[in-house]
């Protein structure tokens, strides 16, 4: 069985041996990168700099909260708002693999700039097993290029350090609990962020729609969990679909966008079953979304696909 304490001790001593000088950790504020930062911080202390990039595709208030988290963890950190840069890089891009690769490359270039200024040689990433498995290579087919693996440019100057490479999310959570990190139960959020929850072009306007819808899904589901109506799903969010549909809102014809709701149950993301959300909760989510987003969204659908054949995210 996986033992968190043993893993922590072994990893810290490996990191002490493996890193000479300064390191940068790519810090999204999710479970994986937070655990990584905590472990490397224990190994090399203030030689570590956490870098959080606001890509513009983060959830509501997320980057603000991540900043607080970095302060609370007493990390040396850099906060970079690169929203405009990301938005313009994704302008006109529709293909999901292309989106992921552009985002992966952008992240690395930003990290390289920081590294150059700070004379850093190592890049620490919270890559976990499903990231490199699904990114493919050799005999293995590419399911999707995770931005931190398949999205890495071929040539990069930084040396990669990935202490969580061989473990899965449920094991990372065990480490987070052992380290007393309050992010331990946070739902996973993909590195490319909301950009891959917008099917088609991820414009700033469409990002705002999906950001609001994701926030509503999270709030309604968390409220339902609080009331004991359901268990917390592994992941739960909204997807903005690239189609429009006809409706009627206030006696007027509507022709708006469609939001898909996705919620799945899993322990490691390698297989998933769609969550059986109670109808009353689905009802509340649907009404909340259409009443809030008005003429922009006039239809909500629920995704009833397992993995396989689907994946958790749509892109």
């Amino acid at each position, binding site marked *: 069985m996986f033992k968190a304490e043993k893993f922590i001790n072994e990893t810290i001593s490996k990191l002490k041996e493996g890193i000479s000088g300064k390191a940068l950790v790519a810090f999204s504020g999710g479970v994986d990168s937070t655990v990584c930062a905590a472990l490397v911080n224990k190994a090399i202390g203030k030689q570590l700099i956490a870098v959080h990039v606001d890509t513009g595709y983060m959830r509501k208030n997320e980057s603000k909260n991540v900043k607080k988290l970095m302060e609370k963890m007493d990390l040396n950190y850099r906060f970079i708002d690169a929203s405009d840069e990301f938005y313009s890089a994704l302008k006109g891009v529709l293909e999901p693999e292309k989106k992921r690769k552009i985002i992966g490359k952008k992240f690395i270039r930003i990290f390289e700039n920081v590294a150059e200024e700070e004379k850093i040689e190592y890049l620490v990433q919270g890559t976990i097993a499903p990231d490199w498995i699904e990114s493919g290579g*050799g005999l293995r087919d590419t399911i999707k290029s995770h931005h931190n693996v398949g999205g890495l440019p071929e040539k990069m100057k930084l040396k990669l350090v990935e202490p969580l490479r061989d473990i899965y999310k449920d094991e990372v959570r065990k480490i987070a609990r052992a380290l007393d990190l309050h992010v331990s139960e946070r739902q996973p959020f993909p590195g490319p962020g909301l950009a891959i929850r917008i099917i088609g072009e991820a414009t700033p306007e469409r990002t705002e729609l999906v950001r609001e819808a994701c926030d509503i899904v999270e709030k309604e589901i968390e409220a339902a969990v609080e009331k004991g109506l359901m268990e917390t799903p592994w992941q739960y969010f909204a997807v903005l679909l690239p189609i429009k549909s006809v409706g009627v809102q206030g006696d007027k014809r509507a022709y708006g966008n469609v939001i898909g709701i996705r919620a799945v149950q899993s322990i490691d993301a390698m297989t998933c079953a769609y969550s059986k959300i109670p109808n009353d909760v689905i009802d509340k989510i649907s009404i909340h979304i259409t009443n809030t987003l008005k003429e922009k969204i006039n239809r909500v659908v629920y995704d009833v696909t397992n993995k396989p054949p689907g994946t958790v995210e749509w892109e």
Partner: protein
Amino acid sequence: MVKIYVIDNGGQWTHREWRTLRDLDVETKIVPNTISLNDLLIENIDGLVLSGGAPRICLEGNLGNCGEYLEKADFPILGICAGHHFMGRFFGGVVKPSEMPEFGKVELKILKQNKLFDGVPEKSIVWESHNDEVAKLPRAFKILAESESCRIQAMKHQNKPFYGLQFHPEVEHTEFGERIFNNFVKICGK
């Protein structure tokens, strides 16, 4: 400690097989399917898992050195998905694209009790991901389990400790997956 290696045929769940074995306190390692049987014998392994994979090996083509292991090994071998297909074809069966492929949730029905299914009820939920299947059973084998859309979900060699599974016991959503792995570990442990 029982020592079982996982032969990597490029499956999405190869690493899950490794993890399940590791969680059962088995000494395990993922090795490429190009490793020779000799190199495996030097390591003194007690059993082998042939992983699934993206390559579709219906009618021809090898799965690395899997043929060599199946021809000469005397230790137990568990073929999963593509590993199971190859085992079927190697021993003279026929592998074909499935008329009705299965992805995700499927109900498994055990037809013949066997040590591999010790403690697994007659009907249980398993998780699948296949486009092809063993359509004709090799003569030396018997069928252990089926599903509604796939007649050969599990098979066993009549004289050798070789098992083939169409479904994936290594993933979380297969109800009795860990149990099946544990049974395989016991079979290897003798």
